[in-house]
């Protein structure tokens, strides 16, 4: 396989669920790619479909009536429609995943070490002691103090930060080329979050892994990601290099989202520039631009679904740049 191909290439991925006799579109035509040793951030509010996208790529959605269409090529292998049996060999070995709440993500009745050993032994012919040696090594690499003792502890005996480190150790145990991190720091305190983000940032150097980071926090994206994709109501609003997106957002949603975050430095605004209303539920999503009802710049051409168009280094699902009215650059863009 040639090296210039992206590690993961997702095209027109759509996921819908059947509810009360109707197909509910959760994710619509999402396309993106993850390169080797890259951190891609998928950012969006709750209900934007960011987690569902990740679960679809992992083949972890098995709700009755679910429909997944489109394509997701991982190292040239099609993941959409892949049998569960084939998925099993990928999961944990080629693609692994960490979750939001490290407390509930471990089985409560086994030790941390046992659970990491299990993953290694399922994918590789390795002795029990060999697996444990690697587990201890991994835990140590993740900055877990006294890894040998920690491996013999149960999940509830560890702090949130240690649990998440153990989770990452487990995810990396078979040297996966892609790590999907679904809101890995949301349940953690801010000082611990900073440590975990630091750890994730360094993975590509130490383990050569790419990371697909799912988050709702623009700050986390800015600190961690090389590139970013903004989802709004199940559709791509904007994607591109993080630096460009933060300097000059191309989509009014991205801009408004960044503006509505209270600043920690600089002048305090009298009122936060907020976005009126709330994202539409999937069944009430407009046929045109989903953000139109809340957008300052809404006009008649927004009644038609905008396609992603190139805007500088970004791709933006908005008519404004094409109409010659791009958003102004952000004042605090690149400090």
């Amino acid at each position, binding site marked *: 396989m040639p090296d210039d191909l992206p590690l993961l290439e997702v095209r027109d991925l759509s996921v819908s669920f059947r509810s009360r006799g109707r197909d509910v579109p*959760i994710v619509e035509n999402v396309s993106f790619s993850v390169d080797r040793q890259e951190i891609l951030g998928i950012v969006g509010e709750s209900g934007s479909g960011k987690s569902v996208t990740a679960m679809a790529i992992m083949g*972890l*959605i098995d709700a009755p009536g679910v429909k997944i269409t489109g394509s997701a090529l991982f190292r040239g292998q099609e993941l959409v429609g892949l049998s569960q049996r084939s998925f099993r060999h990928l999961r944990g070995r080629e693609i692994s995943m960490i979750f939001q709440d490290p407390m509930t993500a471990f089985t409560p009745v086994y030790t941390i070490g046992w659970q990491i050993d299990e993953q290694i032994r399922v994918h590789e012919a390795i002795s029990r002691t060999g697996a444990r040696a690697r587990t201890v090594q991994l835990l140590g690499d993740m900055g877990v103090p006294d890894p040998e003792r920690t491996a013999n502890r149960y999940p509830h005996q560890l702090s949130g930060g240690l649990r998440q480190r153990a989770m990452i150790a487990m995810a990396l145990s078979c040297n996966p080329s892609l790590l999907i991190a679904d809101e890995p720091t949301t349940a953690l305190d801010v000082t611990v979050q900073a440590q975990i983000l630091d750890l994730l940032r360094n993975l590509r150097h130490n383990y050569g892994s790419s990371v697909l980071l799912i988050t709702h926090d623009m700050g986390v994206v800015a600190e961690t990601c090389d590139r970013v994709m903004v989802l709004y109501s199940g559709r791509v609003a904007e994607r591109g290099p993080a630096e460009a997106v933060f300097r000059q957002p191309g989509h009014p949603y991205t801009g408004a989202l960044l503006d509505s975050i209270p600043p920690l430095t600089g002048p305090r605004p009298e009122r936060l520039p907020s976005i009126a209303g709330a994202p*539409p*539920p*999937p*069944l*009430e999503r407009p046929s045109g631009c989903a953000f139109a009802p809340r957008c300052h710049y809404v006009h008649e051409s927004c009644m038609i679904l905008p396609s992603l168009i190139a805007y500088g280094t970004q791709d933006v699902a908005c008519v404004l740049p094409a109409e010659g009215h791009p958003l102004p650059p952000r004042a605090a863009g690149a400090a």
Partner: protein
Amino acid sequence: MVIKTGSSAVSGVAAGPWRTAGQALVRNRPAMSALAILLLVTFACIMAPFYAHDIAHTDPFTSNVAGSFSLNGQNVDIMQPNDNPLHLGLSPAGPTWHPSAYFLGADSQGRDVAARLLYGGRNSLLISFSAALLCIGMAALVGVLSGFFGGVVDMVLSRLMDIMWAVPVYLFAISLSIVTISQGLKIGPFTVESDNLLIPIVIIALVYVPYAARPVRGRVMTLRNAEFVMAARSLGVPRWRILLVDILPNISATLVVLAPLLTALALLAESALSFLSIGVQAPAASWGTIIQDGEGLIYTRPMVAIAPGLAIVTVVLTLNILGDGLRDALDIRETSRKGS
């Protein structure tokens, strides 16, 4: 994983939790079929006198060993020579499958089993429904007192429940039944005769109180620490009003789900007590007493015991299905259990 499809707050009429649950229950086909069967059986049992007098023309409460009845124009003795060479003597008529004449045959006293089955059903259903209601009432009281007030009240009630729990349910029920059935019950000026149905009702209700009180108490404890109760306190809502407005409506769903399950347990307990002759007293019948009547005939006229058994199974099954339906509709994950 949970996918929220988004509740539409913009359109539609405000649907209360009860209405939503009701709609879910109506859509649940097994539960609705169970309810229909249950109502049908109840109706049939209510119509027992009509069946006895106007269709079967029989008195199901007096012995009739010397009598006879007519079937398809022929005169048939109720007690017939035994058709099984191994058993000597007379045995009662078997099922004729003819609604007007000993449909299910006769019992050892020559009484119409079909008519007794309907009369017995009245008692069985009355006892089990009333016992379930009474039990839920007591359990709610115990559960709410214990869960809401906590402290000493909770400790005393919980220990009492522990003690009751440590005695096998049926042994407990049998103990109480034997004591009361033998001589009736005299409490001050009130005398309850031993054939009064109140006795089995109260006993069955009592022995199942720990089973029903536990989930109620758990629910109340959860509610007591719920944020909306904290919110009510911060608003300065008095305790009794919190109990009335915030706690009770939220345990009512638990109670509603418990109702059919407890009725089912009560029916099984009633039939067991009656089977042991310490429930409903002769000459009155219940499904349990009829099974008892049929015990001696089990090898010659099994229908006497099989028919009431099937009736019990049907009703208990429909109640359980209904309970499952209610639990799904009201979205409650709690199970009530029993011993054998």
